[in-house]
């Protein structure tokens, strides 16, 4: 499953080719440094600095599933010097937030797609998406979708919707701390959406002695905090994102298994 198409957008205006580039280009990344699209933004910025002949700096403006950064770009001078890397969440979050019309940003170029996988605890016994659906459709079932970070919710939701359209409503479970979603998926009978990418790669690189990239400090205006928290997944009509195990159905959880017990197994991708 690939739900993480990345795109590049900048404020809508024709760029004057004779004066561009005339100053530093800001490449806004609306996600955490080290995440998928942020890492790609840094790769592109490095190359663009050479090809454009001016510095291209990545600026993290976090919050609201990328909308904080998108609003910043939309409000910038439309001269092409402020551009943005955005994920497929763009086509969901902008619809839910009245503060930004998608037409305020101009699609410029696609960059990449990132495979996203469903993983779950081996104890759950899910081997295929079909197993997951059948279990999720049971009358007693409640579902839980877990993912690593709140801001990834839109991308996952938009990818999941076509798969699970028309299903019953899950109860979403979400934990923000790294690893929390893994524990949630393990302990609550759920399945974890995880972008097959990133932070781990950067971490391994650093462990191997690679230099930690210099990052611009994240900027997240207080006024924007909590402005938009995305879709309430409990209203999405998705069912099968895991079934919350009842008492006695998950002995490991009932024994309050230690948090380190979070091994996962891949489900077969949907076909």
């Amino acid at each position: 499953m690939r739900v993480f198409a990345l795109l590049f957008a900048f404020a809508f205006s024709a760029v004057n080719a004779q004066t561009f580039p005339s100053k530093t280009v800001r490449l806004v990344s609306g996600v955490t440094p080290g995440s998928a699209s942020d890492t790609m933004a840094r790769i592109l910025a490095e190359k663009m600095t050479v090809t454009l002949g001016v510095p291209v700096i990545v600026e993290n403006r976090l919050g609201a599933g990328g909308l904080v950064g998108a609003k910043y770009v939309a409000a910038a001078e439309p001269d092409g010097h402020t551009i943005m890397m955005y994920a497929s969440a763009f086509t969901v979050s902008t619809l839910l937030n009245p503060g930004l019309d998608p037409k305020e940003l101009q699609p410029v170029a696609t960059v990449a797609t990132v495979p996203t996988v469903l993983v779950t605890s081996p104890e759950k016994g899910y081997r295929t998406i079909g197993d997951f659906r059948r279990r999720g459709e049971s009358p007693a079932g409640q579902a839980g979708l877990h993912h690593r970070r709140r801001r990834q919710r839109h991308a996952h939701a938009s990818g999941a919707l076509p798969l699970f359209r028309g299903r019953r409503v899950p109860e979403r479970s979400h934990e923000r701390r790294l690893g929390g979603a893994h524990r949630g998926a393990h302990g609550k009978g759920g399945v974890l959406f995880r972008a097959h990418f990133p932070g781990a790669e950067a971490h391994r690189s650093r462990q191997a002695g690679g230099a930690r990239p210099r990052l611009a400090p994240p900027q997240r205006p207080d006024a924007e905090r909590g402005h938009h928290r995305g879709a309430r997944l409990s209203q999405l009509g998705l069912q099968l994102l895991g079934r919350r195990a009842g008492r006695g159905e998950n002995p490991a959880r009932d024994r309050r298994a230690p948090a380190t017990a979070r091994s996962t197994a891949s489900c077969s991708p949907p076909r």
Partner: protein
Amino acid sequence: MQSAEVSERIRKLGADPLTMSVAEFEAMIGKELQDNARLIKAAGITPN
């Protein structure tokens, strides 16, 4: 994105480079917006 070096670095990260024309890209975004708008309306999704 035309650069082989950039494509290779993106592949090493586990992603697949994706290139298309601006027109195709705009059409794709337009279609996704339409589809998601229908889904959001049908499911009654609201920001929380």
